[in-house]
């Protein structure tokens, strides 16, 4: 029943999924944190930019963003992100699209974390004369990030599942392979079971482990 597995590189496809996830997670963590800093900062223009970015990007389907990076950026504007062959270009464009999309959610997760930090912390930091970057960087963000582990985990799991959208521009990850296998093989249920099992293996442990980490690092108040 599972004979078809020999013909396809299932592990390779899931490795691509993992790579997409990790690269986009790293990128969106950086960009999302910057956006969150802009949104709570004292410069009105940056606040406006952060708010506009989050509200616009959150409301566009990821599919549209990823197709735009492939059809728009690559095919119409000729941007290839320093890659030459088709597969690498699409992989990088998919990572770019995922970063653009996910950082909006990362920003909101971190802002939610900032809201859990008691007012007294920031007041005390200001009272001893710290500037805004110091208040944020030394006092508020370290506590906020620990509280944000939960929401960030949810964003990471959503990201893991969202990497399947890269199939729309031909990145050979798990959902792309699933579609190919279903077209060529008869064992529909077995194929779906394998792919579903793979995703359960990726998302459930992530949730459980990071959920435990989140409880562990949370600031006890």
């Amino acid at each position, binding site marked *: 029943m599972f004979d078809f597995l020999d013909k396809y590189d299932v592990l390779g496809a899931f490795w691509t999924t993992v790579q997409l996830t990790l690269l986009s997670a790293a990128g969106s963590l950086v960009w999302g944190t910057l956006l969150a800093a802009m949104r709570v900062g004292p410069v009105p223009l940056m606040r406006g930019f952060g708010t506009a970015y989050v509200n616009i990007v*959150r409301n566009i389907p990821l599919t549209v963003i990823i197709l735009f990076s492939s059809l728009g950026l690559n095919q119409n504007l000729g941007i290839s992100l320093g890659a030459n062959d088709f597969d690498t270009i699409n992989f990088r464009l998919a990572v770019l699209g995922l970063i653009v999309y996910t950082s909006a959610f990362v920003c909101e997760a971190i802002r939610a974390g900032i809201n859990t930090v008691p007012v007294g912390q920031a007041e005390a930091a200001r009272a001893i004369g710290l500037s805004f970057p110091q208040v944020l960087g030394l006092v508020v963000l370290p506590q906020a990030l620990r509280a944000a582990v939960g929401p960030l985990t949810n964003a990471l799991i959503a990201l893991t599942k969202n990497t399947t959208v890269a199939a729309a521009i031909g990145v050979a990850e798990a959902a792309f392979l699933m579609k190919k296998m279903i077209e060529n093989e008869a064992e529909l249920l077995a194929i779906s079971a394998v792919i579903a099992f793979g995703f359960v293996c990726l998302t459930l442990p992530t949730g459980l482990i990071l959920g435990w980490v989140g409880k562990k690092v949370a600031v006890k108040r």
Partner: protein
Amino acid sequence: MTSVLYDVQGPRAKRRNVLYTAVFLIALAAVAWWVYKSFDDKGQLAWALWKPFFSGTEAYTTYIWPGLQKTLEAAALAMVVALPLGAVLGIARLSDHLWVRVPATIVIEFFRAIPVLVLMIFGLALFAQYTDVSSDDRPFYAVVTGLVLYNASVLAEIVRAGILALPKGQSEAALAIGLRKGQMMRLILLPQSVTTMLPAIVSQLVVIVKDTALGGAVLTFPELMTSANTMAGYYGNMIASLTVVAVIFVVINFSLTSFASWLEGRLRRGKKSTGAVLTVEDTVGVAGHAGTGTAA
């Protein structure tokens, strides 16, 4: 300045702010200029490419409106089917009986752990192999099936969280006046938690609307984005078409999001409710949600 994160600004801080604003403005302007330049170099700003959207209604009546209809149809049908299913699953997960609670928990966690796209691809093949649904209708059925399976389990968590958010006194009082468990759920808990859950349910609608685009890109379901793709092939204006589609999605989803937060504020202030209000953030458990969509 209402933020607690920084002090009221004195003259030096104000000057510094002006400087930061100027630097940021220049950076934004540089990016905008780069976008403009690269669009202009490739002739993407030519009036001919944008004309279909600003003069005449052909682009709207032939491509955008039929696509938008499909998008809204699939989203609405998915929501209507997923809501009762989710309510049943959510209540089942709260059951006192192990043999009801455990299967419901497994179903919910399983379908939340799997990407919607995988469910849609599975649905498409399933309808092709085991039913005689015509091949034209299959993508629609597959998209709705995928959306229902995923969102029913997300909604189940919303329902569960909504019921758990009610004050304990409600169920204690219900039991004290002699109601049975079924009556307590039907007459006391559900009616109150529905208002609590409304904002979260409306926010979930945003996720559903966004996810229909997945079916378009991979299953050739002719929703808004796919018909925009066809349109781009006809007019030769991919960037312009995708931009218009993105704007339409933002308008729809932003109004839904704003409606949800208006509802949330109203319910929070309301005197009749228990004051407990759920947002999407309250309901995400182990497997997270798309937001995330896919999103969230």
